[in-house]
């Protein structure tokens, strides 16, 4: 009988796993997908919000693709319980799916600030496609939008909100913006840049409640003046979708604890993406990254292992990049390690900032800010990622980088980073193009 794979979750991790199973398997298996939503990419929702793409553009594995891959689907259904001993998953409509191995990739959901009125009309999250549709319908040219939260998710839709002709106010509980992505110096630069581009920012703001007045929203704060607006977007964090798995016997810490093959404590149950607590490449410890690149790599490694290969995952690297008003903001790895040997550079003549963090003579983390039109910004972002990813010994080029943090390329090339990188692949073989997946016959 063909091996029965069950994929729970149709996001980045699940889609990559299914594709990789089809690429790697030697004999045809049976794949069943359970997904609460039609598969789409959250990464591109900001471009749907600003109308630069049509809604159809967001879908990753369409009905045709899933049919080509020979996937049995339960779309619109959620997993309700897992019987890991019997290898059976029960869905929210009572259906039972038996499996030989299973991937849990149920992702995360947006959470709202716990204040009265947070669930009221005109208050939105921007996480799922449905939520994106809600925000699209709400924002009109001239709308005053208040974004609660100044983290990465908030910043991914900042350009879109402005391009719709809305005015934007960002309120953040922390004393500064992007508290989990960049340091104080970087945050100050971004804050000044955004203020210059017409965004109002209020940090250290303790939201008390959200009220309705005369068809508008009124945000009340502890110890600060009210803000009236038309639309409120709550970008106040996410939580992993794991409540349904309680009692299944799968070990959960902050996420599902997985080994270097991305297996959970139950050998035929894998986890990937936002719900997985996997190895961090820099620290070597388990961590929940909840970012797109980790979901992608996790998904492919799981797919390969489900297909009978034995792929070890060396760990994922935290990488984040967002562009706001043509300013690139990026950070990698252990950018917030206070004990690291660090060097920083700030340009006086243009919005540019670098911070490089070292352990011995290896780069372990970086923060980079610069105008997105500057070629050296894009290229240096990549090269710094390469230095962190490979952990090449920089030798005397470390001192060079510390003195000249804007002069990355000579250190990158002269440290023979390319030589270290060329053999590196996630699956132990060259990647296939997106359209090259074998289809069902």
């Amino acid at each position, binding site marked *: 009988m063909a091996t029965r794979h069950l994929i729970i979750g149709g996001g980045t991790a699940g889609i990559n796993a299914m594709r990789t199973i089809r690429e790697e398997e030697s004999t045809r298996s049976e794949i069943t997908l359970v997904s609460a939503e039609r598969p789409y990419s959250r990464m591109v929702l900001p471009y749907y919000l600003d109308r630069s793409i049509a809604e159809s553009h967001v879908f990753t594995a369409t009905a045709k693709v899933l049919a080509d891959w020979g996937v049995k689907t339960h779309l619109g259904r959620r997993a309700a319980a897992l019987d890991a001993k019997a290898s059976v998953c029960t869905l929210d409509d009572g259906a039972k799916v038996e499996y030989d191995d299973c991937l849990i990739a149920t992702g995360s959901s947006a959470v709202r600030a716990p204040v009265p009125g947070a669930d009221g009309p005109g208050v939105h999250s921007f996480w799922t496609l449905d939520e994106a549709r809600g925000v699209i319908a709400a924002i009109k040219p001239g709308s005053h939008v208040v974004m609660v939260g100044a983290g990465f998710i908030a910043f991914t839709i900042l350009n879109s909100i402005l391009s719709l002709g809305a005015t934007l106010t960002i309120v953040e509980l922390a004393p500064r913006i992007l508290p989990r992505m960049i340091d104080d110096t970087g945050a100050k630069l971004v804050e000044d840049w955004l203020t210059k581009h017409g965004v109002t920012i209020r940090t250290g703001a303790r939201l008390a409640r959200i009220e309705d007045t005369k068809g508008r929203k009124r945000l009340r704060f502890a110890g600060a003046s009210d803000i009236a607006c038309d639309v409120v977007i709550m970008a106040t964090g996410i939580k992993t979708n794991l409540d349904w798995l309680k009692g299944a016997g799968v070990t959960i810490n902050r996420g599902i604890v997985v080994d270097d093959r991305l297996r959970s404590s139950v050998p035929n149950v894998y986890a990937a993406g936002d719900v997985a607590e996997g190895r961090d490449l820099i620290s070597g410890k388990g961590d929940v990254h909840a970012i797109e690149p980790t979901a992608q790599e996790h998904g492919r490694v799981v797919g390969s292992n489900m297909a009978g290969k034995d792929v070890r995952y060396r760990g994922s690297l935290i990488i984040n990049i967002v562009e706001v008003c043509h300013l690139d903001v990026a950070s990698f790895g252990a950018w917030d390690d206070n004990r690291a040997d660090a060097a920083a550079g700030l340009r006086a003549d243009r919005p540019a900032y670098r911070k490089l963090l070292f352990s011995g003579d290896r780069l372990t983390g970086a923060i980079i800010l610069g105008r997105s039109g500057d070629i050296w910004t894009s290229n240096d972002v990549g090269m*710094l990622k390469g230095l962190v990813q490979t952990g090449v010994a920089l030798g005397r080029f470390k001192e060079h980088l510390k003195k000249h943090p804007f002069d990355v390329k000579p250190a990158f090339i002269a440290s023979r980073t390319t030589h270290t990188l060329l053999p590196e692949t996630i699956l132990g073989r060259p990647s296939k193009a*997106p359209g090259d997946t074998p289809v069902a016959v």
Partner: protein
Amino acid sequence: MRVLKIHPEKCTGCLRCELACSYTQTGTFQPAKSVIRVSPFEGHTSYAPYTCTQCAEGWCMTACPVGAITINAAGAKDVLDDTCVGCKLCTIACPYGTMFYDPDTRKAFKCNLCGGAPACAEACPTAAITYEETATLDWLGDFAHERTARVLVGGRGSAS
């Protein structure tokens, strides 16, 4: 597969490759849009061009959330403009620093080997860039190590 082989010791820093690249890729002589970049070494006394290795992993391609990077007939990773939304994930995923982003078009762009007839190799007057059937290697590492080290020892970055 045929790849761009770089012979750094032959490069004179004339930048013709950048001009040819931008002309073929964008239709204008605009080195700022070139995806092959000549770097100076040893205090601007030697030079070498640097571009995408068309690596086996294809970090840009696997990172793309919408499948906008594919493999063209020449075996090069290539951006599909109609599909790219400009999210920049590829620019941070590429560990070689050879992805580019155009803020005007809001698209990523990169070396696609000009579909199999790379303009940089054609334009190079000293054959410092050749298009050959060979395994891709780190063409610049040793060259740059030696030359940069000389500058570090004797020059501004002297540290060890």
